[in-house]
């Protein structure tokens, strides 16, 4: 179909409040790109709203998490011959004005991660969550031999080689869809770079940030690093298309 086209993939789980405005804004900035909303088992009318706004919609029968939703998008991209996939969150925290930068960044990389941490950034996190992010960033930058300052960012693009890999293997575990997928890409010899992006604070559904929650986050992040560090090099086998 649309050879070497761009697919904007929006994983959405009960995002009826923001999905239409996100689709409209994305189309405003990227009129030639296809927009695919992966409805991850929503119980509200997210799918109908997305369809009404003119996006292609793929509906998972139940909630499988961002990792599962994104693998569905990569499978779709692979089978329809797209040359680039850009992940955009459905809650409106990503600025579609940065899409160009992520897409053109693919000329020199297989994956471009939008980073929130740069000198003009308004984004700030503190406490144990900050330590966890620093730890994850250090570990992945070391693996990558090139800085990845924001490995938990869900605002990123993937080129043909990454699409091929992620259509087969895209982890659905906690932090797997962000940190884990980057570790898999690096281990398979893909080139990962980063670009500065604007990130807005989430308006809805923000998790409570108490001490217990932060400690849990740090613990799970550490476990995720150890798990990906121990995991052997993954070579995708078999052709699913």
């Amino acid at each position, binding site marked *: 179909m649309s050879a070497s086209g761009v697919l904007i993939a929006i994983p959405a789980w009960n995002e009826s409040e923001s999905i239409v405005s996100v689709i409209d804004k994305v189309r405003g900035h990227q009129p030639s790109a296809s927009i695919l909303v992966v409805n991850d088992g929503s119980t509200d009318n997210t799918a109908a709203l997305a369809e009404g706004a003119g996006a292609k919609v793929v509906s*998972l029968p139940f909630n499988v998490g961002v990792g599962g939703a994104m693998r569905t998008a990569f*499978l779709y991209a692979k*089978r329809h011959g797209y040359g680039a996939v850009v992940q955009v969150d459905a809650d409106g925290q990503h600025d579609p004005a940065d899409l160009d930068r992520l897409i053109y960044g693919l000329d020199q990389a297989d994956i471009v991660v939008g980073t929130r941490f740069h000198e003009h950034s308004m984004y700030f996190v503190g406490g144990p969550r900050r330590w966890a992010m620093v730890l994850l960033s250090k570990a992945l930058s070391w693996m990558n031999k090139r800085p990845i300052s924001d490995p938990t960012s869900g605002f990123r693009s993937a080129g043909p080689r990454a699409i091929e890999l992620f259509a087969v293997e895209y982890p659905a575990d906690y932090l797997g869809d962000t940190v884990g997928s980057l570790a898999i890409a690096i281990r398979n010899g893909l080139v990962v770079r980063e670009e500065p992006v604007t990130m807005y604070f989430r308006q809805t559904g923000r998790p409570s940030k108490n001490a217990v929650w932060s400690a849990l986050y740090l613990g799970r992040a550490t476990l995720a690093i150890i798990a990906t560090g121990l995991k052997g090099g993954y070579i995708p086998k078999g052709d699913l298309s």
Partner: protein
Amino acid sequence: MTAQILGAIAAVITFVFVFSLLRRGVLREKYAVLWLFFSAATLFFALVPSALVWISRTIGVAEPVNLLFFATVVLLILVAIQLSYELSRHEARIRRLAEEVALAQRQIQELRDTDGSE
């Protein structure tokens, strides 16, 4: 003596229960074999306690009953790990199926749309 009788009864009940599950096709052979083996071993040691005493002496465990408990705990932990492994594999497969179902549905819809018919 009472412990022996209790052990034997428990083993027989387990054996009969697992066998009936297997016969009705509710339990798959690969799991049934494991539990049938467990209950057969339990029954054997309940009926022939001297065998347990002999094994304990041979490997140098003072109390035969401690050997029994140790072996049971190790085996149950191994079974639990194996079940976690199977569960993880099944979750991965179900997730893949969910993704394929979603894409297949999308394809049906696209084909319908280009066909022009409902």
